[in-house]
């Protein structure tokens, strides 16, 4: 299972190479969404743009995913302090809220359809579907990581090992990242519409 080679333990690293690699991956995801949102702005400026009210559900969902982030952070603190109960409970809560976010995004798309904004009605709506859809795919990856974390929490004996701490931190960084990404996207949609 040990995939990295051991000269990562030289001790000169202020940041674990895997964490650093994850941050780089986040940077590349940021670039992709920067590309998408700037395409949105360029296209918006060109006219022929259907104006519509973004369903309030997306706002509620922002709160949900922020709650999930907070829960996971609290679970991490519980883990670091060796408190098993809050660790497990909050981890489960973060996972549940993450799943809820995905379901609610889907409901949000249905709501958009209800108000007559279909995927191919106008680029203004298409962009919302595509950007939130690609974001949801990234959240799905985070939920999968959380599922693994939950599985570990409930099947492995509670022990604070270096490997498990690193794993937890990687999950935490990515989860905070997709949450913040959604907050950015939501603010972007609201201010641009």
């Amino acid at each position: 299972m040990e995939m990295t080679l051991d000269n990562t333990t030289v001790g000169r690293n202020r940041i674990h190479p895997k964490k650093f690699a994850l941050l780089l991956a986040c940077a590349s995801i940021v670039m992709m969404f920067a590309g998408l949102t700037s395409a949105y702005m360029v296209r918006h400026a060109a006219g022929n743009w259907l104006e519509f009210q973004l369903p309030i559900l997306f706002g509620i969902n922002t709160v949900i995913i922020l709650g999930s982030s907070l829960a996971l952070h609290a679970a991490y603190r519980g883990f670091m302090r060796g408190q098993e109960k809050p660790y497990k409970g909050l981890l489960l809560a973060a996972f549940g809220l993450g799943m809820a976010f995905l379901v609610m995004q889907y409901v949000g798309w249905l709501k958009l359809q209800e108000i007559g904004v279909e995927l191919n009605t106008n680029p203004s709506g298409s962009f919302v579907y595509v950007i939130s859809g690609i974001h949801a795919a990234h959240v799905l990856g985070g939920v999968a990581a959380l599922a693994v974390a939950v599985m570990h929490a409930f099947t492995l004996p509670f022990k604070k090992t270096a490997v498990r701490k690193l794993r937890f931190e990687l999950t935490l960084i990515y989860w905070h990242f997709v949450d913040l990404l959604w907050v950015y996207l939501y603010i972007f949609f609201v201010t641009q519409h």
Partner: protein
Amino acid sequence: MANVAIDPTVTHEEKLIEDLGYDDHFHDHHHGDKYQSNFITTYIFSQDHKIIAKQFLITGMIWAIIGGLMSLVFRLQLGFPEESLAWLKPFLGKWIVVNPETGMGSLSPDFYYALVTMHGTIIVFFVLTAGLSGTFSNLLIPLQVGARDMASPLLNMMSYWFFFMASVVMFFSLFLSTGPFSGGWTAYPPLSILPQASSGSASGMTFWLISLVFFVVSVLLGGINYITTVLNLRTKGMNMWRMPLTIWAFFITAVIGLLSFPVLASGFFLVMFDRSLGTSFFLSDIFIGGKALEHVGGSPVLYQHLFWFLGHPEVYIIILPAMGIVSEVLAVHSRKPIFGYKAMVFSMLAIAFLSFIVWAHHMFMSGVNPFISNFFVIFTLIIAVPSAVKVFNWISTLYRGNIRFTAASLFAIGFVSMFISGGLTGIFLGNSAIDIQMHDTYFVVAHFHIVMGVAAFFGMFAGVYHWFPKMYGRFMNEALGKIHFWGTMIGAYLIFWPMHYVGIAGVPRRYYRFDTFQAFSHFDELNQFITIAAIVTFAFQLLLVINFFYSIWYGKKVMDKNPWGATTLEWTTPIKPGHGNWPGKIPTVQRWAYDYSKGDRDFISQIEPLAEGEKDEVSH
């Protein structure tokens, strides 16, 4: 690990590693090499960066041959449109249309465009991105920074296999009944979106998109690894200013790739939605057969912005690794420190930065606001400054050097020549006013083929000849290498030099044939000449292929760990390094990478401590 210090056969370098090296207990943890216990884990699903490098290289070579052969077919069409191509029918099947009365076989125009598109896609992405930066980043980053392997060998292996999947999908698309994608390697809409637009726009484009998405994943996985390894896994003493220029080049290349490829991916996602789900991001007001399509309100120029935001950095992703290799090879083979080490680094950083703010110079004629064009013209022309710094430094490195004209150094010198002649025409094209005449002519084709096609290939060849002993423990044949060099050098100029002339006269690129254009008919003979030059030059490349594969098994054996007398760390490993690269401790670095001809010594390895009162040369 066994203590070898008491063995009298131990060399000076081995003793230095033993005395000063860092013991990471690597081999205590990796007994019996569980990663490489059988054929499959050693040669196929290997996690060893050295094997992965060879996988990238050989896959790249196969693609280079396919892409090169494609160019010969369409060059035959351009040079000899009146000659029969019926003899190609056994290879190209229905794409050669044979007239039943005359027996004259002609290349189908659809397939001509498919060949041009595939030639571009294959050479740009599969050969000069994966085959060049994939090969040498993998081989050299861990070896030259003093690491056991990449930060994540698993991701590294996946990077290759994503590239492999991209290759397989693209290769299958060559055999589709509607042919591979034919709308140009840039895949502009509407040709890339409307399946009915051309025969290659049907399944061919679907395969192209899938392949390229796999390829983007491959580049990102590789790039993340390269950056992390350079920043986190350098051995003790290897500070950033002691890194060889190869490492700087691969590092900057990976950063550019990491920031630009995701933007290309976002463009591709939008293309997929337009193609398959009826959205209108890039399409508007299109009539086919008098009927309007449903797509309304999109903008094809938007795609061009997204594409060229990658597309321009991509040319630096191609050329920077070649620059790094050339810097290293020139210094080693002229037995002189690289001239202006820090200037080299800063100019690469400047080029990398500028590469992100010049993309619209590919779109001067796409209806971009001419006032905005000014901005892009200025930044484009500024790129000449760091480029000129680099050229000056390479020439100064050669100046009064004790040059060994090996195949590797010849190709490095050839690179400088190509980079100068191709770079100068870039100054013409960077002007939006001159571009009105020059755009989409053979002048553009000549420019980019010399400056990033041939030049990058030269960098790759230099790297292959120079590091072949490290890869396989044998030398390539020098005489064949030199014949290969002179054939390629002269041949490449014979192909592309006349194209400038044709282009200035206004002959457009991408045309299938020119017989209806009387104004261009006096270029017929020149076109024939170019085609013959291309065929001959391609034949010279077979020398490299033969030399490469012959030398893997029958080349002259390397007897000395450091056959070129180089200072960098990869030559302190055993002749055939195993998994983990160094058998015992990891060497630590005591000085910069370019101590050649210092005092009365020919070269001083990076692992040798500074003598008393000696200063590290890095300061300038």
